[in-house]
């Protein structure tokens, strides 16, 4: 079958891609600006066609624990929410990471803290990339910058989640969730019949019982488990870094931006180049693992870096760690649900060049 071209909202693309990726279960709770994900799934009613379970839970807390239960059966399961709802899910996400279960969590970010706003923001970067819940763990974090990537990253997230037995997150924002773009949809995949060896499906006489837990009261055993997680995250850092470069080869000044901000910055780079300023853009696609190595390399070639985020400055800390003091690193961003304009980025970079 061939790919199919559709005009869709980012949230709808996630939902349609989930059905086509052979997802076994979706468990959600309404919250703006991502409610279209569950609405689309309920209307599509994939249980009738693929057997995919779609369930509206009584809370985000229940939804993420349903994801835990489904993932522990070896199924492809997911949830989606937006910032306040993702905060509620953090306990469950920590348990999922601790039990080493694969799953997909979608965060269509809105401004915060608290109830904040329903407009787009990128202020959940720390929460997504540094753990989020309690304990030492990481999610695999993918940052789509288009409706196309919203669709494409569903399958990619599941693939990585199962490869590493680790929860994966799509960190989007209200702009990409709500905007409509053309999207090429992959042909539907059948739901997998493969049952991972660790899954709880009822103990047959042919194997030992399977236990899914994140508990170990013996500190020595718990530390060995923590070390195992660290080794896994190192492997993910080694193998799964993804990023995109735009006019970086001859750049004197580098913008670093992901998601919606990267779309804005691409325009800013063109505007700057028209003014004779050689700017480039590095767009991290994976936020964990972060493209630290590539940013470090580029730090040897450019004069300064500007991290552009719709936040008070979160990813900029990872850029600084990668640059390790070699060149100046700055942050620029709007907050509260305001999307930065390309001109603002241009002016800000120029002020940093003059200031430097």
């Amino acid at each position: 079958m061939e790919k199919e071209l559709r005009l869709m909202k980012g949230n709808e693309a996630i939902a349609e891609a989930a059905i086509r990726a052979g997802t076994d279960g979706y468990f959600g709770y309404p919250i703006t600006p991502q409610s279209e994900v569950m609405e689309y799934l309920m209307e599509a009613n994939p249980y009738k066609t693929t057997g995919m379970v779609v369930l509206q839970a009584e809370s985000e807390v229940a939804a993420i624990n349903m994801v835990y239960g489904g993932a522990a059966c070896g199924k492809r399961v997911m949830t989606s929410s937006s910032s306040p709802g993702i905060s509620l899910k953090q306990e469950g996400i920590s348990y999922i990471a601790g039990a080493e279960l694969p799953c997909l969590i979608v965060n269509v970010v809105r401004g915060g803290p608290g109830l904040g706003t329903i407009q787009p923001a990128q202020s959940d970067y720390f929460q997504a990339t540094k753990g989020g819940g309690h304990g030492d763990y990481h999610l695999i974090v993918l940052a789509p910058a288009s409706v196309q990537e919203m669709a494409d990253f569903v399958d990619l997230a599941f693939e990585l989640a199962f490869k590493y037995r680790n929860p994966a997150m799509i960190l989007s924002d209200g702009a990409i969730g709500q905007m409509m773009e053309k999207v090429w949809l992959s042909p539907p995949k059948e739901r997998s019949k493969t049952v991972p060896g660790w899954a709880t499906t009822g103990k047959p006489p042919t194997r030992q019982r399977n236990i899914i837990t994140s508990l170990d009261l013996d500190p020595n055993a718990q530390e060995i488990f923590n070390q195992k997680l660290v080794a896994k995250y190192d492997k993910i850092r080694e193998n799964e870094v993804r990023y995109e470069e735009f006019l970086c080869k001859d750049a004197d000044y580098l913008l670093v931006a992901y998601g919606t901000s990267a779309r804005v910055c691409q325009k800013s780079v063109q505007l700057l180049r028209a003014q004779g300023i050689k700017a480039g853009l590095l767009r991290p696609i994976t936020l964990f693992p972060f493209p630290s190595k590539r940013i470090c390399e580029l730090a040897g070639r450019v004069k300064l870096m500007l991290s552009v985020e719709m936040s008070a400055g979160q990813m900029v800390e990872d850029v600084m760690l990668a640059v390790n003091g070699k060149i100046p690193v700055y942050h620029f961003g709007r907050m509260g649900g305001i999307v930065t304009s390309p001109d603002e980025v241009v002016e800000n970079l120029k002020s940093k060049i003059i200031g430097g």
Partner: protein
Amino acid sequence: MAEATGIKEIIKPENLVYCKTKIMTDNVLSYCPGCGHSTTHRILAEIIEEEGLQSETIGVSPVGCSVFLYNFMDLDIQEAAHGRAPAVATAIKRLLPEKFVFTYQGDGDLAAIGTAETIHACNRGENILIIFINNGIYGMTGGQMAPTTLPGMRSSTSPYGRDVKQMGNPLKMTDIVATLPGTYYVTRQSVHTPANVRKTKKAMKKAVQYQKLNKGTCFVEVVSNCPSNWKMTPTESNKWLEDNMLKYYPLGDLKTPQEQPA
């Protein structure tokens, strides 16, 4: 050697009147002497063996004294976050509808932090068995007041007795879920005497068999004791249970279906 031969003679299959169910592992139980958890575990394990459900069963253990349930039963088991077992079990059953799914939860887990998950799973009529151990106290954390602690009952966080004006009244979760259309069979039992152990086994067996009909949630409360945190001997605790707990939590079926199990 004569003695060994004697034992061999005694353990001939035709002479056996009782043996440990194969569903219970040989791991040492972490429960205090005289605690109702051990008895309830054995009842459930025996039923799973008798019904031939080992390969069909997925259990969900809670946070609380029975958190290590997965060490004691030779079954596939998931350990859930505190109070979330009904949500976890919901997804398991929805994704594996042919399987037998149970949760095993204490009163803090089911009736305090997990109230929402309990009520909503029952209200959706999830086809799972919920086993609810009610001993009126938080056992694992050392005897704090539970939602089910009786009025006037002392605990480490109600050292002068539960003052219902300050601390609210004990929550009768079993009565609440019995009112929901989603529940199919709701019963309250106890394991404090041999006669009650037999009654509980009968009720739980019915619940397991009803479960196969997939007609809604089956809910079995077991009123239990906590000798350590009630600061009593096991015998005293069983007496106290009979004199006090059962007055507030009377035993018997709260909701019985018309149909008989297949």
